[in-house]
């Protein structure tokens, strides 16, 4: 089994952390401000 040295592991950990950190704000970022959503919904419906 190949063992990753700390120097090779660091970018992988950074990538995982970045992915985890990135996924949550991404979901939140998709949510437009409520007033904007409500105004658009009122018009569309």
């Amino acid at each position: 089994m190949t063992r990753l040295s700390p120097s090779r592991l660091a970018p992988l950990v950074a990538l995982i952390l970045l992915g985890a950190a990135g996924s949550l704000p991404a979901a939140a970022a998709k949510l437009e401000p409520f007033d904007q959503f409500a105004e658009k919904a009122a018009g569309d419906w």
Partner: protein
Amino acid sequence: MVKRNPLQATGVQYFSGAEQSALDRQLVATDGVGLPLDPEKRGATLKLLDSILDQLAQYRAQDLTPTQRVSAASMEFLLKDARAAADYADTQFIFDQFRGMQVGLVNGLSQTHPIRNAQDIDNYLERLKQVGGIIDQGIAAAEIQEKKGLLPPKFIIQATLDGLDRFLKDAPAQNVLVVSLAARAEKLPVVPPDRDKSLALAQEIVATSVQPAFQRIKIMLTRQLAKATDDAGLWRLPKGDAAYRLRLHSNTTTDLTPRPDPRPGSKASRQDRSRDGSDPQAAGPC
């Protein structure tokens, strides 16, 4: 709640410019709960409704201001109510004397549609051309209801027929859809160059398209009158009980049921106890 109902969009003038003007030229045939009769449009409308509800559910109450929370709660109530009403569309009839399709079209054009300039007149004429087709969609839907055994009560049909007679009694030049346009066009500060031509066209559309369509409603309702009864209770219709409960909820925003309120102090409760003599308040003044 605007785009799905172009006449409502005209009434509130929610948009502006070309977007509003495009809506001001449209009419949509809707059923008794306000959903499009056209199956494709109906499906798209319900899909849109579900999509808005899904998006709304993503907002957490704690992230909203008090005003936004009220707004979100109102939206949720109205949209869920509209979603639920879709299942009971057949408990509402297409034509009646109060809120029937034919009443909505005439009132919408003669009262709601604004006449402020030449573009409004052009939009009016475009809508007038669509009335016959919209009515025919309504007749087709009412005939489908009839095949399911769903007919309005006799007195509703008679009152609707009386209204149709009033609409049809005048010659096209005196019809409300022409008179209303003429009266409002007359008051414009700048007389549109084609005003007289527009009025002549309105008269022609009423004579050749609108009045014949109203005659077709009359023919259908006259036939239905012979089969209808005076039984008006919603409970006589399939899903009638559930439709009644939904309307109770829609109109009161409560979960009250059609049964008398059994809570202590309620009117029904006092009436029950007055009958068995256990309510001193029901004894009346000494």
